[in-house]
């Protein structure tokens, strides 16, 4: 039976089963692992192979030049390149998380390759000390490395994205004999401090190096010397191979959990953790799987060299001819396929078999598991997920689907979901793609990262299909494709290539044409870039790019169209810097928004330059305004104001401004005003000299007159009046208020008698009332011509009866109402107004 044959391939270790199905027959030819250095990325990543220069190997019909070759996990060649770097032997080689191959040579130089075998610029160095001391060993983790030098010093790079090497704490190794027997690191992300932790097997014990801190663990705890160390992924467990052939598993406090006595005291060539629960050791032609907390083990014999790749859920075993995956058999699979299993899932699987053979036993099986049906279905689905063989996946899913038909309460999407996942997995497991992800690895890696890896390997179509299938944003894929296409299509004409690109870019709404255009520009295809950027709808992306490809005028136009003044400024500053002033002026003068934004900025910051602009574009009045403005700045600046020449330069500026205004027809008013201003400053200056009081400059003409009168200097006041042709009306208001300010009531009265005031006596009344001089006010109120005004004035000095009389004379009902309001507190007065108002309305006067 099929069930039996499945379980026959399993090995029992204590109470768990292990299996190691073959995933691929390697497609490569003549690769002998023993002759080569190998770097193999986890999560089904690529394999880098290069002839090992630390071994003496026989050359067959091949070049003496070494080649770095990169294969996928199925042994399909992805790329190859000749290795001819200086710096001594290649010491360490490993893939980073984003699938960059890191190669470290003896002198500490770090070379980086992408999956296409292209060496990435620049090279880095582990530092001067490394260079002098020679690197002898490298231990990598996902994104970093620790190097050991001949002098026993440790150097570390924390992150390959940002390569900065630094020295770790000194262990104090003096002689070559003291160099560590072995070394392991714990990924910083599992250490609370965020620093890397290095474990060294030195002497009889273990040394822990934590950045600057060095701790020695010796004696009872570790009965060394330790020959080989391996740490679990999460950094919680430690497997140590001792000099006497003991394998000791301990926790981070170095408390042993169990030990296993190996037959050989020779340290294994490789030692890795298989997930978190067992340790796999490799000696020449033998693999030994040692389980936890017991002395049991499983042994596999190989007649060819193998290379072990630790995964999160098992170990991949690479040999010259095949790729196998060693894992603990998942519980669901065990429950179905274990020999003699009577679990519901197993019965369900069996039922399907009977059903296919039209046997009535199918029904019997179903009845047996009735209540446990959902659980059985779930197990079948789960087991399907763990299979690499597509036909077995199908059979398991069919069993699940069969069971589901009889089960009412089961989440039906589970089967769909699993089918979807498996389709993706099977697609990438195809030997041509060669990414043999297990379902757990896929879930840990996540779909976006898988897609990113596919893109990186230039599998654009597949990644597009997968992202479409999973309902993910395709922008990343299309964008990368477009850029790769541009790089690869140097032979294409711009227009033809543009069509090809647009055809695909259209698939994705909101994709950044500007980013593609930027790439085109970087690849030296400026014209193509210009054509592409035309399609970018977002001005904020489009404009900067147009600038970078030298299309300033288009950029300016687009910026203005967008209405985003920030973009206008961006272009403006760019052009300003690039072009000579006159040309710059010409450019912006033609575009009002650009011009106005420039002026706004220049007003605050570039006065002189702004003047040049106005002059060159013939806007003399604007220059005049600027000069006039400057005149005040001169005035404010104490440095410029020394004694009488103080006003000299100021007045000169104003006069210049006056002349400029005079040159245009439209600005006669401003011209006249500037002229008057200059004159005023001169007179004010004279006044200050004459009165020895610095209170005139920069006050208005009216204020100057008032001040003169307040100071009792009528002569000067009159002079100012005549000089500036101040109207009689204004003169009266000013003089009256000024006299009231100094409470010179006699002078005021005298003034009122000079002649009939051109504005009547209202100024006199108002000034007196405001000064709270009722008696003075009464001198003028009767002289007010308008009875309404008179009424209001009387009301304001609180004379109700007189106010009422005047109001009735004015025959203004509304006024009466208002006056009544203001006398509301005064009962007698308000009744007076009521009577009057009644009389008015009786007469029919509004």
């Amino acid at each position, binding site marked *: 039976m099929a069930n039996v044959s499945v379980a026959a391939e399993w090995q029992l270790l204590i109470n768990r089963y292990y299996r190691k199905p073959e995933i691929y027959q390697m497609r490569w030819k003549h690769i002998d692992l023993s002759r080569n250095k190998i770097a193999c990325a986890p999560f089904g990543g690529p394999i880098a192979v290069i002839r090992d220069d630390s071994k003496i190997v026989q050359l067959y019909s091949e070049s003496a030049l070494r080649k770095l070759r990169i294969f996928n996990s199925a042994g399909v060649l992805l790329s190859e390149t000749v290795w001819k770097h200086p710096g001594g032997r290649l010491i360490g080689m490993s893939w980073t998380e984003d699938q960059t191959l890191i190669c470290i040579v003896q002198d500490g130089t770090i070379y980086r390759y992408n999956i296409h075998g292209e060496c990435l610029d620049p090279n880095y160095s582990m530092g001067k000390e490394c260079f002098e001391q020679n690197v002898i060993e490298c231990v990598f983790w996902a994104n970093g490395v620790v190097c050991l030098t001949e002098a026993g010093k440790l150097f570390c790079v924390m992150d390959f994205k940002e390569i900065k090497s630094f020295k770790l704490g000194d262990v104090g190794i003096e002689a070559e004999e003291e160099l560590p027997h072995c070394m392991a690191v714990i990924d910083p992300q599992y250490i609370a401090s965020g620093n890397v932790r290095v474990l060294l097997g030195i002497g009889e014990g273990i040394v822990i190096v934590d950045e600057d801190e060095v701790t020695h663990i010796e004696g009872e705890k570790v009965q060394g010397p330790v020959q080989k160390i391996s740490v679990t992924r999460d950094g919680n467990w430690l497997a140590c191979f001792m000099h006497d052939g003991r394998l000791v598993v301990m926790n981070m406090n170095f408390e042993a959990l169990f030990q296993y006595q190996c037959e050989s005291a020779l340290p294994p060539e490789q030692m890795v953790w298989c997930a978190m629960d067992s340790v796999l050791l490799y000696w020449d032609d033998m693999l030994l799987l040692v389980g936890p907390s017991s002395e049991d083990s499983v042994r596999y014999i190989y007649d060819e060299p193998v290379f072990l790749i630790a995964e999160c859920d098992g170990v991949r075993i690479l040999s010259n001819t095949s790729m196998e995956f060693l894992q603990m058999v998942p519980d669901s699979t065990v429950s179905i396929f274990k020999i003699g299993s009577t679990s519901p899932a197993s019965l369900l699987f069996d039922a399907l078999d009977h059903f296919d053979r039209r046997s009535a036993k199918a029904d019997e099986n179903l009845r047996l598991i009735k209540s446990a049906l959902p659980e059985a279905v779930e197990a079948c689905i789960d087991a399907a997920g763990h299979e690499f063989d597509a036909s077995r996946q199908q059979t398991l899913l069919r069993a699940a689907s069969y069971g589901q038909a009889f089960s009412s309460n089961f989440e039906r999407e589970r089967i769909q979901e699993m089918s979807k996942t498996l389709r993706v997995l099977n697609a990438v497991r195809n030997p041509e793609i060669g990414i043999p992800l297990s379902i757990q690895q896929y879930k840990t890696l996540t779909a976006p990262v898988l897609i990113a890896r596919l893109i990186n390997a230039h599998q654009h179509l597949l990644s597009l299909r997968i992202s479409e299938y999973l309902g993910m944003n395709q922008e990343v894929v299309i964008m990368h494709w477009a850029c790769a296409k541009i790089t690869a299509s140097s032979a294409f004409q711009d227009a033809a290539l543009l069509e090809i690109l647009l055809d695909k870019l259209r698939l994705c709404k*909101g994709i950044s044409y500007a980013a593609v255009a930027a790439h085109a520009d970087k690849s030296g295809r400026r014209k193509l870039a210009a054509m592409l950027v035309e399609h970018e*709808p*977002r*001005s*904020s992306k489009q404009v900067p790019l147009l600038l970078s490809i030298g299309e300033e005028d288009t950029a300016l136009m687009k910026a203005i*169209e*967008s*209405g*985003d*003044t*920030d973009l206008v*400024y*961006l272009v403006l*500053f760019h052009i300003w810097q690039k072009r000579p002033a006159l040309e710059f002026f010409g450019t912006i003068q033609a575009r*009002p*928004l650009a*011009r*106005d*934004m420039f*002026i*706004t*900025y220049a007003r*605050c*910051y570039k006065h002189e330059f702004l003047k040049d602009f106005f002059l060159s574009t013939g806007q003399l009045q604007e220059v005049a*305004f600027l000069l*006039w*403005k400057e005149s*005040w700045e001169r*005035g*404010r600046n104490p440095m410029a104001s020394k004694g009488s020449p103080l006003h000299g330069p100021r007045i000169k500026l104003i006069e210049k401004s006056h002349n400029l205004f005079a040159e245009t027809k439209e600005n006669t*008013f*401003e011209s*006249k*005003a*500037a002229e*008057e*201003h200059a004159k*005023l400053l001169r007179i004010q200056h004279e006044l200050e000299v004459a009165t020895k009081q610095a209170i005139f400059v*920069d*006050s*208005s*003409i*009216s*204020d100057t007159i008032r001040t003169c009168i307040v100071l009792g200097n009528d002569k000067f006041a009159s002079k100012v009046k005549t000089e*500036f042709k*101040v109207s009689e*009306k*204004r003169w009266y*208001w*000013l003089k009256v*208020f000024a006299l009231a300010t100094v409470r010179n009531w006699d002078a005021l009265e005298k003034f009122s008698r000079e002649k009939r005031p051109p*504005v009547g006596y209202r100024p006199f009344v108002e000034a007196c009332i405001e000064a709270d001089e009722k008696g003075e006010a009464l001198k003028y109120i009767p002289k007010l011509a308008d009875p309404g005004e008179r009424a*209001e004035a009387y009301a*304001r000095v609180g004379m109700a009866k007189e106010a009422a009389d005047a109001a009735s004379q004015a025959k203004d009902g509304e006024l009466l109402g*208002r006056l009544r*309001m*203001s006398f509301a507190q005064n009962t007698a007065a308000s009744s007076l107004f009521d009577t009057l108002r009644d009389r008015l309305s009786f007469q029919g006067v509004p």
Partner: protein
Amino acid sequence: MAKVSQIPNLDNSPLNLRSLREQSQRELVNILKNVRGKKCLVIDPKLSGSLSLIIQTSVLMEYGVELRHLSADPLETDISKIVYLVRSQFELMKFISSQVHNDISKGLQREYHVYFVPRREVVCEKVLEEEKVHHLMTIGEYPLYMVPFDEDVISFELDCVNKEFQVDGDTSSLWHIAKAIHKLESFSGLIPNVRAKGRCSVRVADILTRMQTEEPVNSHDMGIPEINTVILLDREVDMVTPMCSQLTYEGLIDEFFHINNGSVELDASILGAQQQEGKKMKHPLNSSDKLFKETRDLNFEVVVQVLRQKATSMKEDYAEMTSTNQSVSELKDFVKKLNSLPEMTRHINLAQHLTTFTSKQSFLARLNMEHTIVEAESYDICFEHIEELIHKQEPLISVLRLLILFSVTNSGLPKKHFDYLRRELLHSYGFEHIATLNNLEKAGLLRKQESKSNWLTIKRALQLVVEDTDTANPNDISYVFSGYAPLSIRLVHHAIRSGWRPMEEILRLLPGPHSETKRGGFPHSASSESMSVAGGRVADGRRSLVLVVFIGGVTFAEIAALRFLSAQEGMAYDVMVATTKMISGNSLTESYVEKLG
């Protein structure tokens, strides 16, 4: 005593303004979290007003913040991490630079972060570069594009949109406005109808369309959009209304005491608080205050009566309470009423204080003059009045305000008068005001008459002057100005009722172009011609929303008129107001003032 918070309660808002505000809170908190440890937060003083409507100062303190206002003076603090929160303005860049230079000269090494509100701008960074401090800064953004002022009012807090656009040709604000509306759409769905009148408005509508193509609001996920129509209106279209004195309660408070960020600052004694003489006190004014919500939009004449009535009825209740035996529940009701007593006292005090201003003869004369100008039938009287104000050297702003009103209603002044008044202004207030005059001329607010005024036609066609306005039981928006119906709100009313089409002739008489756009494909929305009464319902029975955006600011009186409209029977929409700034005639006029000296 339930103290009214300056941060308005937005629970009753027709839009989800709360989540908008919460987002702004979160963003600010994240900025503070990003800078670890104690930090000195230096805020642009203008922004601190906006922030007071977003987040309590105490919350900022929780994140180890020491608060300072940004000024030209050196920064005095012991803290080494400085976080500047500033609008993108040259002046502020200079302040920052000078503070940094000061630190350098003292040998202080500090960590500087500059967060631009609402976004970083090339031009400001350029200034920092020129001042050689740019490399010392970590630069970020705080995307605060709008601040909810009340349940139905949002402000973009842009100070001088009008002046910048009309005088400097600077359109930065327009992009900001479009961005804010676009952001609002990401909450409420794509707004299907866009109506615009005025140069700025039409441009904003254009930019809004561009933004939709550049970064589409996904309308399909959201169902029916909450906002059915946005009406964009330039202040420039109606410069008459803001220049008239507002006569609603809130409007008058603003005219006399200035409302800043939803609160008014007065002597504590005026508000009836038992505090030492001369101490200023902030009094929040928003709809969380029930009594204020009831009275804010009434004509002030009526407010006094309403308050008196309330006081009387409470007095009666009290009398009843002491004389007869009451049940417990009646007692409870009474106590509840008593709770509103402090509020009532405050408003009675405030109203009383206001009356001392409104009863002044000068104020009444001014109202009289405003009406005469708006009536536009007695040119000479108005001219002479203004001439006299200048001769008396009355405060410049109030003179200019009348003069603008006068010039706008007359489409400018005859050249002789124009030059004469300008000369008198310069003589009376100083030649430094030549720049102000130049600004006003460029903005078209005080200019030479070139053609006959069409104000009379507009006034008649839109019935702007209404005789016999009953301020107590109004039936028309003209109650807010005791007889003048604000032009802006008349336009909005027409736009809501029937769109622009039927009134194009009138629109053409007003400054700037107009546009009407339909966006997206909504089968449920009303036809573009008219939004029928039935068309305005959102699924859950709420009325759908019209967003009225005032570019260049709006007055409290206009908002009152809009609320009045929205409350009318037969009105199918709730109205939400967005403005670049809350303004009064004075603040609007001030924005054009530029002294050379």
